């Protein structure tokens, strides 16, 4: 069996093309992900932003083949290192998981097995993809990784159980376990959400150092725009299972062109912002994936539909088209000049100070 990384030449390491994920249920079909396309290059980080039910985690589970095969319909294409993985058998996917593509989960206390020593959990991950390695090699490698992620006295802590670690240390163990087989692609699903800010900063530092060292591609799934701003090269904003805006992090966060992205920016306060800044929540609740709104999925919650002629927003799904700020910035919105709306109506409310700086 050839490892995908061998047959892979230049170009993005991960290419997701027109991916749709559907779960037929007794209540109807849940469209978890619809026509999603994105790519990640080695050494780069893609931040996927969205709320619960936006499909941000589902698409990455499909990359790992961790979806329930019996109850999931997949279409489109996922190429890892040039290899199409959609339609691959369980054994081929197993060889990929934890080897070329690894995952870091949110809550390390729940994601590590409570009854096994962490040393065992790490060596197990190594031996799964190095069947000819001896147990001693695996242990050596595990201790090396624990040391690399900054766990003091790794040879002692090796024998401890997950509950004996602090939250930050546990997340380091998770990272060590994910990186033990030198994956080319790391999917980090809310890796710092359960952590305190000072620990979050430590973990993000660590992830960044490791990325520089191993030149891996990272998908960072998060709801925290601050984390995205500091960590991601590219950002994809998801809503109702679709990408509604994507492009370089700077373009998305400084010159967003999609009202949902504006809503996200305006509904979180900032530690540095003007105290006159207001919190403007997005009205209503995220849509049901069983029954997505017609047209643009965001239109029932969008305060700007009046600026679009006719009832285009509720009848026609906008395409993901290039935005004004650059050729790599795409947005899914019918507004004729979203940038003007943002500058004139949204910015003054959420960041009066920024406006003054610009003038």
């Amino acid at each position, binding site marked *: 069996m050839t490892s995908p990384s061998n047959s892979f030449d230049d170009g993005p390491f991960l290419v997701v093309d027109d991916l749709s994920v559907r779960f037929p249920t007794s209540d109807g079909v849940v469209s978890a992900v619809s026509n999603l396309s994105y790519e990640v290059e080695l050494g780069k980080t893609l931040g996927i932003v969205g709320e619960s039910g936006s499909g941000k985690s589902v698409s990455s589970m499909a990359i790992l083949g961790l979806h329930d095969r019996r109850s999931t319909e997949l279409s489109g294409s996922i190429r890892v290192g040039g290899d199409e993985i959609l339609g691959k058998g369980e054994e081929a996917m*197993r060889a990929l998981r934890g080897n070329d593509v690894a995952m870091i989960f949110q809550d390390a206390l729940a994601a590590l097995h409570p009854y096994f020593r962490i040393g065992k959990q790490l060596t197990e991950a190594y031996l799964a993809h190095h069947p000819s390695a001896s147990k001693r090699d695996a242990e050596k490698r595990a201790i090396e990784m624990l040391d690399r992620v900054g766990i003091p006295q790794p040879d002692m802590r090796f024998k401890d*159980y997950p509950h004996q670690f602090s939250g930050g240390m546990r997340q380091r163990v998770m990272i060590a376990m994910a990186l033990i087989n030198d994956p080319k692609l790391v999917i980090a699903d809310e890796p710092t959400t359960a952590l305190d800010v000072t620990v979050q900063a430590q973990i993000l530092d660590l992830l960044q150092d490791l990325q520089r060292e191993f030149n891996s591609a990272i998908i960072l799934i998060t709801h925290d725009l601050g984390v995205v701003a500091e960590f991601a090269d590219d950002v994809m904003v998801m809503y109702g299972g679709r990408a509604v805006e994507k492009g370089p992090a700077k373009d998305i966060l400084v010159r967003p062109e999609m009202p949902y992205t504006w809503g996200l920016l305006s509904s979180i306060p900032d530690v540095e912002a003007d105290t006159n800044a207001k919190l403007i929540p997005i009205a209503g609740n995220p849509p049901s994936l069983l029954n997505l709104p017609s047209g643009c999925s965001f239109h029932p919650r969008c305060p700007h539909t009046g600026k679009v002629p006719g009832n285009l927003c509720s009848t026609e799904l906008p395409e993901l088209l290039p935005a004004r700020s650059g050729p790599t910035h795409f947005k899914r919105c019918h507004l004729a000049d979203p940038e003007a709306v943002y500058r004139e109506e949204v910015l003054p409310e959420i960041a009066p100070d920024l406006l003054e700086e610009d003038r």
Partner: protein
Amino acid sequence: MWAYVVRRCLVGVALIMALTLITFALFFASPVDPARFACGKNCSAEQRDVTRAALGYDKPFVVQWAGYLKGLAVGRDFPLDAEQRAAAPDQVTHCAAPCLGYSHLDSKTVNEMVADALPITASLAIVALVMWLIGGVLFGILAAIHQGSLIDRGVVGGTLVIYAFPSFAIAVFLLQYVAVKWGIVPLPRYTEIADGGLWAWFSNLLLPALTLALLYLAGYVRMTRAFVLESLSEDYIRTAKAKGLKSRTVVFKHALRAALTPLVTMTGLDFASLLGGAIITERVFTYHGLGMLTVDANNSSDLAVLVGIVLLAGMIVIIANIVVDVLYAYIDPRVKVA
């Protein structure tokens, strides 16, 4: 850890004392005259008084209870009346600690009677335990990993059928058809390992143990299924899959390991309370274990034996509880017994 075990044992001793008190109180409240039954039929009034004195039934309640506790702790000699012992030294029976009592009907200490019966019941229980655990866990996992499929429905349906049959019906069926009519196995007759070797011991236990095992099997299939399903939905199972482990490893190592914890608790307690199930099984297969002993003692109103068995059963439950709790600390590293 040891401090914990010692503390639990102390509580256990207190529980046993309370148990003896309650048991004594219950038997005292019973309408029969224990001395009359102990003396047997054709018993004259004087003989009855002698028996009453020999068993100490003439003493006040508290004195009897204290005497019983003393027997449990250091053993005692029967008859209890010192004059009777002095009068007939050759008829004195020493009952060593923990003395469970003396059956005047059989002229034996309860300890001797239990010593004869216990190995039979214990053999039965152990073989049944192994059967229902293996069967329960295997079928439970099978159903869990095929959740919602025909296999799952078949297994769950099968457990319903077993639930529906009373234990004695299964026992009679196994005995009358499998052993007698079809002759697939020889008629079960308890054989000690010392007499016939391991195989003879085991093959003779097969049918009665199966009867007993089926009583629990259905419940264990369903519990294992539920526990495995629960642990399969845990985050750490997703992690195990994401590491690229084989699905066999994920199910049998990671998921089963977590499901095992509650199973151990159930097993320990069920094992301790097997006596109830053993009564029917032993009766149908005429095995002279604790179950039969209980039935016989009840029929002949041999109170001394009944008290002894009730206490023994209580002690087994108490000990099993302590063992389960200590085991728990070994199985689940997060549990610290202190």
